[in-house]
């Protein structure tokens, strides 16, 4: 049964899509965690949901609506480049309202409820060839963006005061990282759903940070953990009736716990 499934085309597509999303999520997560912007990830993904729900009502592609929603929020957060408590409360206020609007859109939408469920909880096994191609293109943009911005992005994330003194354009980088994050979030939503984006963007990076003090190694480790969680989760869900998103978040969290324990004794 399990081996039969492994030979199926849709399983290969799912595994490839999972890998693509894991790479970008794990990579961007390192910068997001270093900037203390985990809450922003949540906001971007929830408003991606609002965008998708709005698209459903209008009868256009929900993925397009989702990317637009995420990008708008990412752009606003990046431009505001708030720090600390002010950012948290601003994000909380915007997030709650956006989610409320999303609920309204869903109630207006007369189609199948499964589409909404898929947005919230992910539908990796439903990924088609065209969607996989789109995922790969967006991922390539994000990876290229990170590669070009890598050093000033790291500098402004971990040491903003000195970065500014050295002429690093903080606001530009803030906008850039939030736009890349919005694209990443729109990717991750398609695999794990709106509610579980943090499990791919934040948890692996947080675990990696615990295990190494080297920025480059943290990035590689974070990608590796995200890959393990996604591919492991997809495989486990083939053998078990439980949802893929559960397995992905469970593996991701298990690695995080292990990393915390390991770094405590180190």
């Amino acid at each position, binding site marked *: 049964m399990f081996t039969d499934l492994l030979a199926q085309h849709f399983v290969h597509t799912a595994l490839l899509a999972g890998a693509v999303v894991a790479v970008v999520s794990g990579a961007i997560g390192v910068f997001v965690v270093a900037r203390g912007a985990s809450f922003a990830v949540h906001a971007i993904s929830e408003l991606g949901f609002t965008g998708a729900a709005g698209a459903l009502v209008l009868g256009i592609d929900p993925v397009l609506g989702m990317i637009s929603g995420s990008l708008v929020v990412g752009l606003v957060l990046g431009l505001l480049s708030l720090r600390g408590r002010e950012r948290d409360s601003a994000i909380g206020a915007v997030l709650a309202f956006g989610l409320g609007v999303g609920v309204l859109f869903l109630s207006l939408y007369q189609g199948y409820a499964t589409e909404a469920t898929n947005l919230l909880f992910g539908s990796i096994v439903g990924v088609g060839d065209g969607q996989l191609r789109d995922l790969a293109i967006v991922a390539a943009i994000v990876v290229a963006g990170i590669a070009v911005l*890598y*050093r000033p992005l790291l500098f402004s994330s971990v040491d903003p005061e*000195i970065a500014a*003194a050295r002429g690093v354009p903080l606001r530009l980088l803030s906008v850039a990282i939030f736009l890349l994050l919005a694209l990443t979030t729109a990717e991750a939503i398609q695999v794990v759903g709106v509610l579980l984006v943090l499990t791919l963007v934040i948890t692996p990076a947080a675990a990696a940070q615990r295990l190494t003090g080297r920025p480059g190694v943290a990035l590689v480790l974070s990608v590796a953990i995200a890959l393990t969680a996604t591919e492991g989760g997809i495989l486990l869900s083939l053998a078990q009736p439980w949802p893929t998103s559960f397995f992905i978040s469970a593996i991701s969290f298990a690695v995080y716990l292990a990393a915390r324990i390991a770094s405590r004794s180190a």
Partner: protein
Amino acid sequence: MTRPVVSVDSLALRFGDRTLFEDLSLELAAGEMLAVLGPNGTGKTSLIRILLGLLEPSAGGVTIDGCPPREKCGNVGYVPQQRVFDRDTPLRGRDLVRLGLDGHRWGLGRLSPAGRERIEQALAEVGATAYADRPVGRLSGGEQQRLRVAQALVSDPVLLLADEPLLSLDLAHQRGVVELLDARRRSAGTPVVFVTHDVNPVLHTVDRVLYLAPGHWAIGTPDEVLTSATLSRLYDTEVDVLRVRGRVVVVGTPDDTHVHHVDEAH
């Protein structure tokens, strides 16, 4: 006499109708150390930000190595106040120093052997080689500030700016940081601008003192500026400057803060 490294010409800074300072002119020669003193809110940090090109003065101008700060003719090293790094910040001591070398450049950036050599040299110069591979979040305040000096030195700066770099350090580490900056200006002729609320840790090394009081300023040797007559004139009230066992104590400033307080807690 050679060309001054820093020229400040008729500088004024106003926020709304509040004037922090005006008609401020001074020149810094190679190897000179200037302490900037004064109570909070008189523009000490703003002066540093103008020198870094992060703040536009209301009038007048600044040249560093012959051109305005924004044009960055020469690198300016900046040592900030010690701040708490998150324990898990994915950054080792040597990574922090490296950011000072090439953190502002685009791309992933492979470290050249020459760059590696520069970082080793800067680490050795401040005596931080032993803990260069430990995460910065787990180092003491004194160790972090030594790395900050290395981070500022690694770009081979034409000018060093330090903004309250001794805050929250114990006396031994305060002395260590001052000695490092002093050594650099003696060996390489790099002038140092040192902002501090307490002149005593640098009293024996500074050549001149710029005292910013609300609306007025004075510049000269410590013996010229740190006198009852000069400070009484600046504050327009009776201020006493006492010398107690080689330390300067100021009593009677209007805001009732003892600007150069004697801290016996250590």
